[in-house]
């Protein structure tokens, strides 16, 4: 499937400020980032200033200014997963990732009774131990 173009994404949304987050989600999903050029195009389409759009893009953790082509494991390191020992797994996960995989910290995937938990795309993993987590990282 080819990537949708930015104008095609914008055309799907009403030209009002309330569309800004849904648009940014689409742009981030399609291009892996919401960069300065995208911010400018979105600002023009929504009749906002670039500063307003940049303010929103930079506020939310889900939007990034540059794309990271590496596969990504989102590892939960919030309290419930800490209670189940996630901190002891971080070094092994990063060693397995080398620089090929991105190990990103997130706070809570809602699997708090069965942590440590991780997410790759929309696939969830629970009850991780060092062996399972490093295998997951290496499999990407």
């Amino acid at each position, binding site marked *: 499937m080819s990537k949708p173009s930015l104008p095609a994404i914008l055309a799907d949304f009403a030209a*009002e*400020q*309330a*569309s*800004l*987050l*849904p648009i*940014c*989600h689409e742009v981030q999903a399609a291009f892996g980032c919401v960069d300065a050029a995208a911010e400018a195009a979105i600002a023009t389409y*929504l009749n906002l200033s670039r500063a307003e759009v940049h*303010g*929103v893009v930079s*506020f*939310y*953790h*889900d*939007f990034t200014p540059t794309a990271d082509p590496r596969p990504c494991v989102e590892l939960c390191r*919030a*309290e*419930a*997963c*800490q*209670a*189940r020992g996630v901190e002891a797994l971080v070094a092994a996960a990063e060693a397995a990732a080398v620089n090929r995989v991105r190990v990103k910290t*997130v*706070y*809570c*995937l*809602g*699997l*708090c*009774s*069965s*942590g440590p*938990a991780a*997410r790759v795309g*929309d696939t*969830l*993993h*629970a*009850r991780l131990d060092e062996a399972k987590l490093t295998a997951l990282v290496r499999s990407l």
Partner: protein
Amino acid sequence: MTTVRISDDALALACGADAVAAAFKGAGCTVERVSSWGMHWLEPLVEIEGKGFGPATPEDVPAILSGTSGKAIGPIADHPFLKGQQRLTFARAGRTRPLSLEDYAATGGWASLTRTRGMAAADVVAEVLQSGLRGRGGAGFPAGIKWQTVANAQAARKFVVCNADEGDSGTFADRMLMEGDPFQLIEGMAIAAHAVGAQLGYIYVRSEYPHAIAKLKAAIALAAEHIAPFALEVRVGAGAYVCGEETSLLNSIEGKRGEVRAKPPLPALEGLFGCPTVVNNVLTLAAVPHILTPGGASLYDSLGVDRSKGTMPIQLAGNIRHGGLYETAFGMTLDRLVNAIGGGTASGRPIKAVQVGGPLGAYIPPSRFHLPFDYEAYAGADALIGHGGIVVFDDSADMGALARFAFQFCAAESCGKCTPCRIGSTRGVELIDRIRGGGKAGPDAVEALPQMHNARKAGRSREEDLHLLEDLCETMQLGSLCALGGFTPYPVRSALKHWPEDFGA
């Protein structure tokens, strides 16, 4: 042909439910995907003719089908974990297919919506008031009063917003409800809309819940004709914890930075796009269809203790043997919840602390496990119920590190609007590092500069540093705009009070 029921809840999927379901299909069974019973240590839980097997793997399939599996737990509905519960909001958990309108209608679905649409709006609000239902998001504000304020406001447009930005660690009840019984939430929102005169509703879900988002979107499409003319839209968050605060959530829906708004004006009067808006948590709105059955409000009011009425879906999480969802009337002690029901720690080591109410909740030592689960009792003990999550820690936990984490989390997630939270959280991390590191003998390089004539030149004793920490906590608690900065002192102070030895004393 054998019918096998396996949950498609995100937690079951994370534990490998899809592979188990595929193995049963391969063995010639009919597989029905249902919601989760909430017994998470048994997921993936397989149900055949009411009997349970778990946690199941694909390799267990032949033994389960031949009746020789060692993972049999007997009739699921009779399991002690479920027997002791009083499920109102989660009455359908484990029993119905989440996206089946047929299952929903067969279990009493839409009856309350039909009933309330035949009632005057004011009577609907009166029944919610009578039930004593309080907001389940954490603040515990009476839902009926909020609805009444919106209903009495004069405006051309009004909104119902569901706060499904369940960011607290240790909580998953909203997620389970959205994934397991989405129509109940939709019905609750439609009832709220009728009661206050709203035309449009939003469900704001965090982006960390992709399965809940997909289920809700599908459920809204299926339910559209049942709730018309009321219409619903799903909005997806973007990884900001603070958007669980109602005013920053509203800003986020409007396409703005998720910054907290000063109150007043209350969202009930000037909320989304400046219009009167009901903002309620998932569990609050999902409790509404039950309350509005005939006699439901009185039943709800008869449960619980003091001013904490009805049931609370409590989430047992962290280092606990039997983790999962436990819905019960208010008033149960922590000891019973954590030890008798939860079975103690998963690691088998002694419990050191539990944190109730998410990252902003206090750490409670076993010596105070007699506390009844009740909004006022917790407030009186400098703790909070929050969204009902209980995270258990064993004796390997470092409470000083957890107190530091509370500040660090606040610093990472602060919206930046108010100073106590934005700057106080970072200063808090530094201060705890300093206390744990044995203090500071003298000024650092910057403080020693001649320009820094106001900087303190002498070191600080541990007592002075602790006093400073207490000052900082007080400033954040009283001076922050919202609960993020305002409640971060709870975990910090409680950790310091009960486990001073973890701060390098």
